[in-house]
């Protein structure tokens, strides 16, 4: 396969993210695919801090900071006003974390998608409130330790399943929906290029491992992101105008391979890991059914 990652960089070095931050890779690849004529909006999140203190910025495009709940609404206004100005060629991008998307920003996201603005909403999913110091979000997976789901004597680690916002967006029939991974940059960039062909709202959820939040060594970011796909914990799919395509790795690895190198899952028993495996298998079957066109309930 020829090298397909654009060489242009719109994210510069000198940002303030942690070593091994998955969210920085997500932004870097997204921007390579978006190009120069792009406006990015970020809510409260790690990415509100990563570009650096005023007057510095790590991005080469207009970068708008907005309050936590308002990414979907802010990009709606930017998009429609740029159209009024004859600037239809600008890419209008919301770039929000899982808390800002699955929790406090869900209403504004859902409404922006429903109104049909020609915007990109990128959810960089590090599966907890990382900027405030690792508190659970509704996108935190079953079994994870966070500071608000401590293991403790009563083992109150997160007992609820991950809310998958990309699935919700498909249920809402958003014209373009995809999941992507920083371990598969060519796939990620290809998906944004596909999304660009769709006139209307686009939603892409990118798994972005977080070394301090998931408790792993920073050199393992890409490896963990890859394992998430290879174990089918985080399946990669694309949904274009109602047509669903699942990336199928022929030889899936057991979920244990993904869980065992992250401290946040270190407390799990064999039975609990087995439960996660069963859930992953069940979801995989559902996704296969969806691809076959069977009704998903």
């Amino acid at each position, binding site marked *: 396969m020829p090298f397909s990652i654009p060489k242009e960089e719109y994210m510069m070095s000198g940002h303030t993210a942690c070593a091994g931050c998955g969210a920085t890779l997500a932004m870097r690849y997204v921007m390579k695919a978006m190009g*120069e*004529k*792009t*406006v990015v*909006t970020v809510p409260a999140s790690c990415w*509100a*801090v990563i*570009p*650096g*203190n*005023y*007057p*510095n*910025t790590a*991005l*080469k*495009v*207009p*970068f*708008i*900071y*907005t*309050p936590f*709940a*308002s990414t*979907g*609404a*802010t*990009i*709606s*206004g*930017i*998009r*429609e*006003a*740029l*159209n*009024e*100005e004859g*600037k239809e060629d*600008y890419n209008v991008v919301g770039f929000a974390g899982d808390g800002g998307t699955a929790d406090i920003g869900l*209403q*504004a996201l*859902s*409404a922006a998608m429903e*109104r049909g603005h020609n915007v990109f909403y990128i959810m960089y999913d590090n599966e907890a409130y990382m900027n405030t110091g690792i508190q659970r979000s509704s996108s935190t997976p079953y079994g994870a330790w966070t500071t608000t789901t401590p293991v403790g004597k009563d083992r109150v680690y997160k007992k609820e399943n991950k809310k998958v916002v990309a699935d919700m967006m498909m249920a809402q029939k958003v014209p373009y929906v995809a999941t992507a991974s920083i371990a598969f940059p060519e796939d990620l960039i290809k998906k944004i290029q596909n999304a660009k062909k769709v006139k209307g709202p686009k939603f892409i959820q990118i798994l972005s491992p977080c070394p301090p939040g998931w408790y792993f060594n920073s050199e393992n970011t890409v490896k963990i992101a890859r394992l998430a796909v290879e174990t089918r914990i985080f399946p990669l799919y694309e949904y274009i105008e109602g047509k669903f395509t699942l990336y199928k790795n022929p030889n899936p690895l057991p979920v244990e391979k993904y869980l065992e190198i992250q401290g946040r899952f270190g407390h799990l028993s064999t039975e609990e890991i087995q439960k996660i495996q069963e859930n992953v298998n069940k979801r995989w079957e559902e996704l296969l059914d969806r691809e076959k066109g069977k009704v998903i309930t």
Partner: protein
Amino acid sequence: MRNMNKNWNIMTGNEAVALATKLAGVRFVSAYPITPQTAIVEKIAEMVANEKMDAKFIEVESEHSAMASVMGSELAGVRSFTASSSHGILYMHEMLNWVAGMRLPILMAVVNRSIGPPWNIWADHSDTMIQRDTGWMQLYGESNQEAMDTIILGYKLAEHKDILLPIMVMQDAFTLSHTSEPVEIRDEMVVREFLGDLNLPFKIDTNRPMGYGSLMPPDGPFMELKMDMKKSMYSAVDRFVEITKEFNDLFDANFPGPVEGFMMEDADYALITLGSISSTAKYVVRNLRNQGKKVGLLRILLYRPFPKDLVISYLRGLKGFGVVDRSSTYGPYGSLYMDVISSIYGKLEIPAANFVAGLGGRDVRVKDFEEMFTKIMEGEEGEIWINVGVK
């Protein structure tokens, strides 16, 4: 004054506001329904749908999103508008602060309505008094003509290059919003010339990328930016006097400006009011004058920035005055009273009473104003609630 169409029509306050947004060349409107504001955006949606207004209108899913979306559109350099009331204003509180800090000259029309519980959809000023410290300028109108004119003047003031702050313009629920009065419709071409195009110096441009609201630590210019906001806002009092003069000359109008003094010249006693109850107060002032009592009324139109020097100039020489607060706030006294008293502190020593009246749409009647004047002429002070007690 120049030749232009003089065009009168009978319309509600809400219709006057909607029409004013068209005259002002608003190009993006985003709003969420709430009584008694809804008729404004219904009218705008209708004008847009029938190509009578060249703008994009979207109905969003909340007031928080209404304010966030006009933030986005204004940043893109497009003159933007929203409207709301009551709980809607409270729901967008976070975004109000953000928009002001972003220095975006957005205009919001507010139909003042009380805050629950209990549910109550009628007029008082609690909804916007709660927002007086958000960095927004505030203009309170008395008539449907002012509902129209404050939109035009509001954009002119907000977009002034030395100010660049958002402004909310107020009218009272139902008394103005749903009641018809004759309104002179300002000439659209002249309004456009008066306002010019929005020229936001930092609008979104990929040839000039920048961060809008980047992180600023304590040794960054955070405090300097806050000081600049305050200074810019307080420069708006003088600007508003100039803009009002320009407006009145251009349209042969008699908009009062930041404050209106009514029979204040030789007054011994006066009331200070905001909004539509001022009309009743003026009627009472006239009656009392006919009885030989030297009374007057000072109406505040521009409440933020608070026109303290103008207020002092009108109060100087009085023997007593009363401030009417039509809002429930929980400081030691009402908001307007505290602003007046802190403005005159150390400069004037005049006995003053704080009247609380008209909450939740309760009528402020002729006899209520008569009672207020009687009390200040008797030298009463402190907080006095008017027309309370379940009957």
